[in-house]
């Protein structure tokens, strides 16, 4: 028998979130202790049951930290998200989705 090799990520976006967090931690934006503290709070909302510490919780935690540190405000993340959704809708299936494909894109 051989050791099973579990899949690290269930979807590419999970891998991207993981890589962003590791990269920013190594750039010194936060320590791992700060990260686990914030993640621990994120998955324990005051108004609901405890959640999994999965990559969607990582994403929410990362957005909170970036907004607090003034690195990326929630507003600019929302604007850029909308731009990517428009870009996707304008990108023929099978081609890579680029921000430039957003009909409202201005360099």
């Amino acid at each position, binding site marked *: 028998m051989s050791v099973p090799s579990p899949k690290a990520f269930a979807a590419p976006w999970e891998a*991207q979130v*993981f890589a*962003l967090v590791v990269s920013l931690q190594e750039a010194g934006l936060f320590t791992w202790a700060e990260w*686990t503290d914030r*993640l621990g709070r994120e998955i324990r909302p005051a108004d609901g049951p405890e959640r999994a510490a999965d990559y969607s919780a990582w994403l929410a935690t990362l957005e909170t930290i970036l907004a607090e540190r003034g690195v990326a405000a929630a507003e600019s993340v929302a604007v850029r998200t909308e731009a990517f959704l428009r870009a*996707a809708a304008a990108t023929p299936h099978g081609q890579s989705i680029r921000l430039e494909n957003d009909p409202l894109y201005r360099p």
Partner: protein
Amino acid sequence: MSHDHAHDHSHGSDLSPVEARVRALESLLTEKGYVDPATLDALVELYETKVGPHAGARVVARAWVDPNYRTRLLSDATPAIAELGIGGRGGEHMVVVANTPETHNLVVCTLCSCYPWPVLGLPPVWYKAPPYRARAVIDPRGVLAEFGVTIPETTRITVWDSTAETRYMVLPMRPANTEGFSEEALAALVSRDAMIGTGLPGAIPPEMPA
């Protein structure tokens, strides 16, 4: 995202809201110089293809065949693991706890999902979920039963809570009848779950039937 559906894609591409958010963050952070796409790709490749429980299995097998190594591993795990060329982020302060006939060890992170990445890779979904986080502490024997692991009533179960600073790994007991086994053959008996404490060496976890 399956591709076996028949609806028309000619008008555009699918991007879920969460995928769009992640792309937005990555593009903003790249523009501001906080991250480098090539570094991100390298990180993903590393954790998808290189880092995983096969590393921890090598540590366990070495400890089974080399009593001096076992002593070093249990007294100061991080440098002992580094002797095998294993280490790095998520494993800065490792503690290895040995199973014995008297004590079975089980690892959890009650806060979130702290896990010894260099030896075990990234944690499985159940490790990060509230039921395991809560029940590993209050009902470890019940949790083990769900994993198909039965520990004798006379064996004490000790639960270790990993944190960002200290991350635990279990050194399971060497299975019987493996006297002639090579280190490599021994390593092949060591599953991820055996090193978390939710499995035993040579046992096939219920989530991965043979």
